[in-house]
């Protein structure tokens, strides 16, 4: 559906050249929810804007839904843009128009007759759950409702691709989740390809099938979300994964526990998918002369399966502890010994 080949975007300023996007290659399949994560300035915003021609690449080609967006101009580009919708961090609604008229705007642009427009708008209002708010103005809506209007507006012309530019970054956690649920629902119901950029791993974890991690204009890591969670390679990816697998206070807690248990070892286990359901701890206690103390655990749900982390304290004879850890490793469970107390 989307193919990005050898794309570079260089901005020239008085201070010299800035490579916003550097040698990016990307294939996104139809019906996929693809996430791009990175800190601000990583080039993800420029990258997503190249998908609908709001930015043009300095070099390389961008093909979306059969159109070479990086080449076409004028009415062809405008026509193509009707198939590549976008929602924004700050919603970008027209405050002078009511909810209904905001959603009708892209239909006016596409030249849909009035009667059909009204019908389509009513459908969309139902789809995004804004019944009863049709005649409200954006200033009377909450952030979540504004983004629902944004989504309805983006879906009006039955696009093939939906681009989400930090669409939930201005929303509170609960509203973020409801908007993300709506995006998944749309993806499943309409088979829409969704590309989103974010700096929140939570968003990637919750709805994306695949993720690309960007740093300094380059994609440093790419893969199915679960794989990236299971085995993050780049340092920046590890940091992003920690955002969701480890609650913020974990590090402090672990340090504290290491102090508390001067003997034995504190071990972090990572479970992926079905492995999470094995009675690993039971086996450990039965087979080895060790005591196991569960310190902290968490399971996260991703679109391709669950991912869990568990912190345990293993104590006993040094040899037995070593054997026990070998055993855990043989069970295809991610093991990281945090301390050798």
């Amino acid at each position: 559906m989307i193919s990005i080949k050898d794309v570079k975007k260089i901005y020239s300023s008085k201070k010299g050249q800035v490579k916003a996007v550097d040698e990016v290659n990307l294939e996104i399949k139809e019906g996929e929810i693809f996430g791009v994560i990175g800190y601000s300035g990583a080039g993800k915003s420029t990258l997503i804007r190249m998908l609908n021609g709001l930015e043009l690449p300095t070099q390389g080609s961008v093909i979306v839904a059969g159109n070479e967006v990086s080449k076409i101009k004028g009415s062809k580009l405008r026509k193509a843009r009707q198939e590549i919708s976008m929602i924004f961090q700050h919603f970008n609604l027209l405050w002078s128009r009511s909810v209904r008229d905001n959603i009708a705007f892209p239909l006016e642009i596409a030249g849909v007759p009035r009667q059909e427009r009204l019908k389509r708008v009513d459908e969309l209002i139902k789809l995004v759950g804004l019944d009863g708010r049709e005649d409200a103005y954006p200033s009377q809506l909450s952030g979540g409702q504004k983004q629902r209007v944004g989504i309805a507006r983006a879906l009006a012309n039955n696009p093939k691709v939906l681009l989400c530019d930090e669409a939930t970054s201005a929303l509170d956690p609960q509203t973020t989740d409801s908007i993300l649920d709506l995006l998944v629902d749309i993806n499943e119901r309409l088979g829409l390809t969704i590309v989103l950029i974010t700096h929140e791993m939570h968003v990637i974890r919750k709805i994306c099938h695949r993720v690309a991690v960007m740093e300094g204009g380059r994609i440093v890591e790419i893969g199915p979300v679960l794989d990236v969670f299971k085995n993050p390679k780049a340092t920046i990816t590890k940091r992003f994964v920690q955002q969701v697998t480890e609650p913020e206070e974990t590090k402090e807690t672990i340090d504290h526990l290491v102090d508390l248990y001067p003997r034995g070892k504190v071990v972090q286990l990572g479970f992926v998918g079905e492995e999470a359901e094995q009675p690993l701890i039971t086996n450990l206690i039965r087979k080895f002369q060790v005591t196991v103390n569960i310190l902290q655990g968490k399971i996260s749900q991703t679109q391709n399966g669950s991912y869990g982390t568990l912190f345990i304290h293993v104590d006993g004879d040094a040899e037995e502890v070593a054997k026990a850890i070998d055993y855990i490793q043989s069970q295809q469970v991610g093991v990281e010994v945090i301390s050798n107390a």
Partner: protein
Amino acid sequence: MLNEWFPNVKWDSMWEATMETLYMTAISVIATFILGAILGLLLFLTSKGNIWENVAVNKVISAFVNIFRSIPFIILIVLLIPFTKFLIGTMIGEDAALPALIIGAAPFYARMVEIGLREIDKGVIEAAKSMGAKTSTIIWKVLLPESMPALVSGITVTAIALVGYTAMAGVIGAGGLGNLAYLEGFQRSRNDVTLMATIIILIIVFIIQFIGDLITTKLDKR
């Protein structure tokens, strides 16, 4: 009682002068609104980072606007006499005042339009572009409606300035309340005529401000 307080006021000529002032104001406000909006849009669209970004065109329009905004109105009327004679055929009467009124006020209003347009969130324009909107659609359905409260409050201020300009134009023969106050009031030392003309001008200004505020509040959904 009115005749006691204003013994020298001839009500029929006062009425006639009021109508002349209203006529000059109305026509020049309409023309200023259109011309100023066009100039303001051009200033905005050709500025850096906008749809028709063009430094040369922007500088030319900007210079034109700044020059005509800077010339004191009373001097502008005199400077424009040849142009007015060519256009209208005379330089006496209300119609002869119109070119100077419009050329004096439109650049002033154009700057206000430009400021109003700059206050529109760039993201909204980007959103319209991302939907495949043409530039004309962006102008008519995004830029103008989104800046309408600013455009209306701007034209209110300009209209009030124009009422003042018509009085100045009156002094050099354009008719209206300014003409009456100057010729009948000042030159014949009939202060009651000047006072009455002032009161009527104040009423006109208050009404313009009231209508402008009303429309602005009604339009502003922010």
